[in-house]
């Protein structure tokens, strides 16, 4: 599944790196606890979160994640968007809640992160 499809499925808005929407995603992780996110490494992941601070972007960068989706209409700060832009991480925001957003992506074939 590519980021463009994620965007369409979640009726999300793109906040940065619009030129990277054709990037393929192989797994996803939904969490507000960044240490839990850091516990599982998987290539080409998308992070879904309701947490809004700079550490979300840094965590995604450490994990080589390609995309972050902010759920529940959470909106990252300009500083966060600038950092994501610099790193090349696509940032999306959706009105959907975490459970629903994860469910939609999972049922459309995007499997969980951390599988070995």
């Amino acid at each position, binding site marked *: 599944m590519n980021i463009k499809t994620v965007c369409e499925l979640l009726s999300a808005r793109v906040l940065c790196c619009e030129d990277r929407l054709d990037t393929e995603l192989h797994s996803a992780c939904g969490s507000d606890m960044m*240490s*839990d996110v850091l516990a599982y490494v998987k290539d080409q992941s998308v992070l879904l979160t309701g947490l809004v601070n700079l550490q*979300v972007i840094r965590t995604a960068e*450490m994990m080589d994640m390609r995309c972050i989706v902010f759920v529940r209409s959470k909106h990252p700060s300009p500083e966060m968007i600038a950092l994501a832009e610099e790193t090349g991480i696509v940032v999306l925001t959706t009105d959907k809640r975490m459970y629903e957003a994860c469910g939609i992506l999972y049922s459309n074939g995007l499997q969980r992160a951390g599988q070995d």
Partner: protein
Amino acid sequence: MSEPLVFTFDVDGENFTSAGEASVEVKKRLRQLGLPPDIIRRVSIAMYEGEINMVIHANGGRATVTVFDDHIEIVLEDRGPGIADIALAMREGYSTAPDNIRNLGFGAGMGLPNMKRYTDTMKIDSTVGVGTTVTMTVNI
């Protein structure tokens, strides 16, 4: 055998917002050296967790990353309160972080276990009231 490359960073303990900057910088430099992506990821995640710990618990400290021919060594030194029971601190889910840190997405008791998970060796030297030194290595 070539001369090892050493990167040193002061980790600012005053500001949680800037926590992780040193790890981002290390990741950048290791990429420039052309090291394999999974090695870079393991080093930077372990260092990032350590850096966050130093900010939360120890009011900052010093991070030194040395790149040898066959491994990378990360040394994190602080003059924080020290760890009284290291075995307990290593247990997944155990945390002494305050609630405000949990609201920021950390303090789940996964930091030290994650650091161990991503490195080949990890050693903690800690004295209560003096400080803590964590030494980790990742084989290349």
